[in-house]
């Protein structure tokens, strides 16, 4: 197990370097000049332009810029935003709880509905329920996030007026951001109804963001369940006289979950990527929206830094999944 962990840790470094290289080159490939964008409509005189470029370090060759960047990164310095002049890491930390809260709720939604749907579809294979789950999940999977989000807003927020259109909290409330997680902060504050407002703001974005993971989890659980149900040990469990519920929930599910956990872990990447779109649609003040806005402003340090942190997070979660996988699957951890 220790050897396995050490090996997995070593694999992180090449991935990390690859990400920095990729984001760096992509960001610099986007046409457009940050200085001009900062200056706005009025334009800027060439001498001042050069001066600002120098201050931002954009006058040096790309290779030098990259080396400079990567050394700073290893020192823990992700640079400062061109626009706000604040350290990228600090800005990220203030915005990240919003994204985390949204992703977390989306994942809960996906697992809460996807897992049981997959299990039942697998057990009741070929029935109407099975076919419906498969059709709905395929539809959900293929639904463009943008369109799906707008559709839900139109129906639930505009037509029915059940949920708010955007943001994290009604403007009626003012909550101190102690933890940055609106649900927790609102719950702890003495503002009446703030928690309910925070919750109602979370529902639609969580559904939109959780739809693709839900579809993937449901399909994976179903196929994993189908495979496991015809294993010899399931027959053994039945031969012991166990109830069908016990056979499914204990003997089959435990084994069926092994691949599903991997898939759930992989969905974290999907979630963070999807958060960029979802946050934009719902004006959710998280890192996704922040990165999109920074791309528009050619705020290189923010884009690079933001993507780097998110990618590192994904790598970290994947590592976590591998460890968890070892725990649920005795064949790996003790091998």
């Amino acid at each position, binding site marked *: 197990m220790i050897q396995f962990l050490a090996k997995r840790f070593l694999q992180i470094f090449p991935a990390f370097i690859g990400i920095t290289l990729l984001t760096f080159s992509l960001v610099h490939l986007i046409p457009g000049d940050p200085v001009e964008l900062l200056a706005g409509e009025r334009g800027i005189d060439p001498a001042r332009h050069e001066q600002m470029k120098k201050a931002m370090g954009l006058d040096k060759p790309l290779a030098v810029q990259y080396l400079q960047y990567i050394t700073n990164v290893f020192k823990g310095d992700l640079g400062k935003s061109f626009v706000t002049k604040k350290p990228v890491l600090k800005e990220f930390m203030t915005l990240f709880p919003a994204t985390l809260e949204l992703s977390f709720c989306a994942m809960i939604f996906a697992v809460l509905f996807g897992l049981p749907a997959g299990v039942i579809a697998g057990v009741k294979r070929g029935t109407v329920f099975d076919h419906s789950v498969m059709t709905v999940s395929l539809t959900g999977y293929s639904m463009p996030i943008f369109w799906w989000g707008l559709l839900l807003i139109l129906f639930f927020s505009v037509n029915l007026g059940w949920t708010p259109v955007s943001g994290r909290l009604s403007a009626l409330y003012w909550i101190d951001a102690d933890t940055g997680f609106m649900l927790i902060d609102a719950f702890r504050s003495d503002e009446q109804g703030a928690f309910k407002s925070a919750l109602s703001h979370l529902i639609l974005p969580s559904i939109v963001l959780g739809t693709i993971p839900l579809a993937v989890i449901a399909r994976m659980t179903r196929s994993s369940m189908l495979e496991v149900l015809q294993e010899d*040990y399931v027959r053994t469990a039945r*031969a012991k*006289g*166990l109830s069908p519920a016990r056979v499914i929930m204990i003997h089959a599910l435990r084994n069926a979950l092994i691949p599903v956990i991997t898939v759930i872990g992989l969905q974290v990447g999907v979630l963070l990527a999807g958060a960029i779109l979802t946050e934009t649609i719902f004006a959710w003040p998280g890192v996704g929206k922040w990165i999109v806005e920074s791309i528009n402003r050619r705020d290189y340090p923010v884009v690079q830094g933001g993507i780097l942190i998110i990618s590192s997070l994904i790598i970290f979660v994947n590592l976590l999944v591998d460890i968890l996988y070892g725990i649920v699957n005795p064949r790996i951890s003790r091998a």
Partner: protein
Amino acid sequence: MTKLVEIKKLSVDFDGFKAVDDVDLTVDAGKVVGIVGESGSGKSVTQLALMGLIPYPGIIEAERLMFNGNDLLKMQDKRRRQITGKDVSMIFQEPMTSLNPCFTVEYQISEALKIHEGGTRQQRRDRVIELLSQVGIPVPEDRLKSFPHQLSGGMCQRVMIAMAIACNPSLLVADEPTTALDVTIQAQILELLVDLQKKNNMALILITHDMAVIAETVEDVVVMYAGQVVEKNSAQNIFTSPSHPYTHALLNALPERNVQARRLPTIPGIVPGKYNRPKGCLFHPRCSFVQEICKKEIPAYTRKDKMAVRCHFPLVNYPS
């Protein structure tokens, strides 16, 4: 002698294919019955039907399906599960895959105890240790926390046996329990089964390909072919005077009977499958004694004294 198992006219249908076709089988309490037959002859499916383990989309039909005086056909699922695993249990051909890879040996054995007998955790643990030593696992205390992948095939089968006999069943069905094991282990496992059968006075249905095993361990033999029972006889009579041409051919293909031959005789043709079930006697295309009537009429399963045969022209004292 009480009839423990009584099966009459059992058929199991998989999407129109009769994997088991009109099978009769009786097992008396405390007896050892062997079932032989080529691959695909319906040996396993017959026993799965008795256990109530026929997988989707199999359909069971029977005139009678009795176990220990209980009518399994009319019994509710819940009541039936109280019998399955307690009074009748089964072990399978692939010991390695028949144990759940996610649970420890102790968990899997004590689960059967918990469901059927209850008791405290400590009582169950003591019983598991007792069972493990009964099936010949050395230092059973050390094996409680083992996972199946840490055990050899022979060990896994011993664990399976421990699990099967946990609630002192009156019938144990062993479906080719040694096929997946190597030869030395095979003998040990068989010896263990016969030993337990005698000690616990339980009935044993032993499915096997191995005629030598039949000769050594079994009192009655049932020969199956293409989903039907073609002959039932005492182990002694089967070897000296087989009645069905298929049994006869099966015995003739034994290596022991062909010590001098350079090539073993085989039975020409193959077992009919889903699409090529012949009319009349299912064995007639491969039978060396075939007559016109065999191609048209299905022979009835007829009893004579202690034996029974499904053939228009059973062999009488035919030298085998």
